[in-house]
């Protein structure tokens, strides 16, 4: 096996890692960096639990090889809070009880984050379309949709992140 050295920026911090060509970004985040907020639901692109942001875009970390993201900036759910203060999306998911078991939640929130990056005022339809990437088996979608729309409203008011 030939390991390759990669440099990746995760949640603002640069890491130099030697990785196998077949290791996924999901493997690296969870097993090497201990960032277990990103979940593995299906490992074949169907559930969205492994969603992270790469250069601001929502990406599935289970279908991305670590070698492919050399030099890239990755944001995971652990990178959202500022110190002890939760991100407005996280606050809003709590406030609206949009979390039951929580397995799908990090993926949903990272997907919503990417949506809000380029669309600060999405319609309900746009939010629903975005969430069609994320499978939730317990909460359903009503509350997450409300939570995201509410967070977007709050973020437009604050306009700081």
């Amino acid at each position, binding site marked *: 096996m*030939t390991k390759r050295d990669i440099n990746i920026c995760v949640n603002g911090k640069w890491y130099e890692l030697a990785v196998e060509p077949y290791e996924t970004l999901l493997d690296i985040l969870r097993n090497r960096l201990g960032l277990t907020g990103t979940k593995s639901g299906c490992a074949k692109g*169907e559930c969205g639990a492994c969603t992270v942001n790469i250069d601001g875009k929502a990406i*599935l970390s289970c279908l*991305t*090889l670590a070698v492919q993201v050399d030099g890239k900036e990755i944001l995971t759910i652990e990178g959202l809070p500022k110190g002890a203060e939760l991100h407005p999306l996280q606050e809003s998911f709590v406030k609206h009880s949009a979390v039951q078991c929580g397995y799908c939640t990090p993926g949903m929130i990272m997907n919503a984050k990417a949506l809000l990056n380029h669309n600060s005022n999405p319609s309900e339809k746009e939010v629903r379309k975005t969430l*069609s990437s994320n499978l939730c088996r317990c909460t359903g979608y009503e509350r997450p949709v409300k939570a995201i729309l509410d967070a977007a409203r709050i973020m437009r008011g604050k306009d700081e992140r």
Partner: protein
Amino acid sequence: MKEGFFRPREYHRPNNLQEATWLLSSFGKRAKLIAGGTDLLVNKPPEVECLIDVASLDLNYIRKDGNGITIGAATTLDLIERSPMFSAGPYVVLSEAASNMATPTVRNMATIGGNICNASPAADLSLALMVLDSTVKIYGLDGSRVLPIGAFFEDVNKTALAEDELLVEIHIPMSPAGTGASFLKLRHHQTAIDLAVVNVATRLTCSDDFCEDARIALGAVAKRPIYAEKAKRLLTGKRLDGKLIQEAAEIASKEAKPIDDVRSSARYRRRMIAVLVKRALELSITRCET
């Protein structure tokens, strides 16, 4: 490593097409190109020893000139879906197919080149590209060659690409005035992640009510996507009415050679082809007028 596991030992990022073909020819069957990885990393073929990434080849573009529209092989589906070039005229058929594929997050990663090179008989973009008379540009050790897209698909997961070759771009010629096209897909559960039970694309060029030219492409009903040639011949040169459309749809469904599989029975597929072709033709007609 043991057989049965996806354990490539090498990963390369060629700087140009020539380097890519050198790598492909020196590793032969043991090499695999990787683009978005949304087919490859699901299938995880155990025989792959060397991955060659197309990301560094600058093949992510959509360009328009007097001859038509050219799309780089590594262009992602989200760009195609949103591009103004596929928001009007018969070209909407491509964004229609793209936006009906997978989930929005998968579409951020999946490429047009990956969809057609994977050569699934149920692939959605193949049909849209077929009715638009697209050609594909291929690069290999002997330089480049161009093929009509219909000749690119050979069998299930098999294209006309030789071992040293890769897909560079897809060219869509300008369609004549009065042309409309549409794409329709039937899924088992109608959820975002379902592949097509059957899918259909059609394109018509009309003047008044006369059909001057037609294309009908069918997916998931043969070892590769096919053109319904008999149905096309029936329509061409005739006055379009409900009866003729119905007849064409029935002929198309007879041209299909579906099989029974996990997603559907052959019988159901054949019947649904007739329904989808009829609806797609009707939709294409309404789009001719604009």
